[in-house]
Structure formats: C-alpha cells, structure tokens
C-alpha cells in the first residue's frame, strides 16, 4: 500500500495541468505528472518517492492522440505501449513496446511515462532517436515543438513543470527496414542487458542502444564506424565497442565486461543480417 495521503488532480486542458503543477509546487506539495502510474505507484509503495500530489494527464485530449497524416505519425504522451503496439503504425516502435515488461503492464505504461521515468532503460526512446522524431512539449513557454534528440540526452531534459504532449515521427522512417534485438540476463520478460535498435534509411545504418551504459544513447561516431565501407564487419564491430559514450554499466544483472561482450555479439548478428538478409 501507499502509506501516505496525496492530492489527485485531473485537469482537462494542458494549461490547467501546468497551472496546477505550478500552484502545487508553490504550496510545497512536490507534485508529479501522472500517466500510467506503474512507476509512481511502485516507487511510492517502496518509499522511494513521496509525492504530495499527482496530476493525471490522461484526460487531456492532445495527449491522447494516435493518428497518421500525410507527413507524420502523431503519438500522444499518454498512449499506452499496448495501444501503440496494436496500432502497428511504426513497426520498430511496435517491437520495442512489445518487449517492455509484460502484457498487463504494457496496457498501463505510457509512452511519456517510459521516456520520463527514472527506470534507466527508456527503451521507447530508441526508435524515436533513430527516426529523427520531434516532440511537442507544454510548459512555462506554452507549446513548443523541438527535435526529440535536442531534449533527450540519456533522459528527458525538460524545463520545470514541462510535460510531453505528443511525439511526431516522420513518415519516411515508419516503413524503413529495421532491427530490434533485446538480450536479457536470463528471462524473456526483463530489463535489458543490452537492447539494440537499428533503422536502415538512405543506405545508412542507424543504431541506438539501451541497457549497455547507464543511459540509452545513439552515437554518430559509432554509426560512422558501423557504416565504414572500407572496414571488414569484424573491424567495424570491434571499433564500435570501443566508442561507448559512457562506461558499460555494471550491476547484479550483468558485469560491464559481459555487457560489452553481449553488445559485440548483437552487433555481429546485426551486421550479418543487414549484409546477407535474415538468418
């Protein structure tokens, strides 16, 4: 159970949500934006967080959008992983959503929650980084739309009180050939030891990774090496593993050395498949 009382606030508009946040913050209530709640409930039960108020974004129409127009796919921040998966509009994101937690939780966890949460894997960011997605935010500046990569550097870098309204994915990326390889310590349903997502666009292999380092990343240097036509596949992989943006993560699920080994075998399999087709 959650051993403390908190205020539940359910705004109908983006403006009301932001105003509620500012007001509750001023009153010292330590407010949290709330979507699926899977992480907030778990952490409040465990005593790791103590929000005095939660602001539920699920009744704001702009945050609920899931639509495709002639240029882009628009995904509201409170769409659940399962809604995105079942829409089948972005196959790589479908694969990523389908491997986060189990089906029951996929029906609760939202896109925005997965991106903004404190659980470090944030696997839905990988397809968005690869697709050159952009994101619409609401906060003190009102609405602003920016490239996703400009506000996601390992985790969301939002201004105080700001929240994600929608994510926009260019149509070009939706049907590009793609790969999603998730390796866990032992179980099928688990946090990743290493997850690699890749998108083949404009004859260039784009690669992003979660689990390997403390935070998920897409690295231009690593992609340059992986696409270097003058190098053999083995050399590309070897050089790519040396280009980690942070040290490999080390915890009870897997040592840093083992994670690098898993990453290397995934890259080998990935390049093999890109070059010669599915195994």
């Amino acid at each position, binding site marked *: 159970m959650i051993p403390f009382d908190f205020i539940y606030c359910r705004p109908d508009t983006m403006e009301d949500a932001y105003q509620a946040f500012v007001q509750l913050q001023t009153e010292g209530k330590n407010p949290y934006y709330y979507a699926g709640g899977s992480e907030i409930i778990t952490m409040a039960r465990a005593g790791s967080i103590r929000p005095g108020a939660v602001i539920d974004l699920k009744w704001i129409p702009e945050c609920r959008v899931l639509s495709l127009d002639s240029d882009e796919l628009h995904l509201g921040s409170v769409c659940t992983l399962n809604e995105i998966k079942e829409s089948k509009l972005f196959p790589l994101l479908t694969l990523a959503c389908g491997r986060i937690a189990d089906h029951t939780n996929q029906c609760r966890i939202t896109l925005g929650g997965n991106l903004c949460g404190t659980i470090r894997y944030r696997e839905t960011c990988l397809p968005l980084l690869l697709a050159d997605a952009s994101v619409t935010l609401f906060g003190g500046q009102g609405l602003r739309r920016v490239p996703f990569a400009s506000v996601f550097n390992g985790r969301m870098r939002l201004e105080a009180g700001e929240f994600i309204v929608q994510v926009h994915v260019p149509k070009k990326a939706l049907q590009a050939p793609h790969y999603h390889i998730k390796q866990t*310590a*032992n*179980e099928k349903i688990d946090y990743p030891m290493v997850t690699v997502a890749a998108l083949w666009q404009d004859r260039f292999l784009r690669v992003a990774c979660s689990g390997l380092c403390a935070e998920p990343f897409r690295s231009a240097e690593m992609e340059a090496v992986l696409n270097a036509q003058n190098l053999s596949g083995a050399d590309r992989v070897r050089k790519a593993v040396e280009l980690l943006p942070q040290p490999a993560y080390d*915890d*009870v*699920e*897997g*040592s840093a050395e*083992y994670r690098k*080994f898993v990453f290397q075998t995934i890259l080998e399999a990935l390049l093999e498949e890109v070059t010669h087709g599915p195994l």
Partner: protein
Amino acid sequence: MINPELMRSIIAGGMAMGVSMASREAAVYDEKGVVRAPNLRTYKLLHIGQEPDYRVGFVETPEQDSPYGVRSYSEHGIIGIPAALANALSAAFGRELCLLPLTPERIWKAIREEPK
C-alpha cells in the same frame, strides 16, 4: 505408492527448485556486504512458463525397519538437478563447469578464463 500423481508432483516440484537454484539463484553481496538482489524483483526465480518437461520414475524398495515397510519421501528431486545441469552444460561446452549458479555470464567467464 499410495498416491502416484501426488508423489510425481512433489518430486517435480523439487526438481523445479533445483533448476531454479542451479540456473539463476545466488545471494550476491557488494564489497560492503550489502545484498545486491534484496527482493523478488531482482532475485529472480524460475517461474511458470519456463519449466522444462520433468520425467519422474520411482523404484519401489521397502524400508525394512518401518511399519509395513513404508518409506517417506519429499522434494528429493532438488538434490540431483544441479549436478545434472552442470554435467549437461560441461558436456556441451567441453570443460568442467561446477560453480553455481550456471548463468550465461558465469559460463562465459569460465570459458574465457580457461581456454580450451
């Protein structure tokens, strides 16, 4: 045997505990002696859906000293499984693997540290 299906279940239950223990369970501590997997979120057990096919057979030998020759039984299946798993993996990888739990990472380490 008084209740063969119940006996099979108890033995298979022991085997399940043995597979779980041998393949993934470990009390790991950090350098300060703090448990690194302190709850069932991080200390992972074998669960439904991951169970192999358990084949159980009984050899009936009366217990001479007890009334009617009856013999009690329990989750004895747990005893042999770690050794059976270690033997199978040792045969598969061509080297002696005898430290539990036999996780993929531990096997990788054993192979790397002691090349064939």
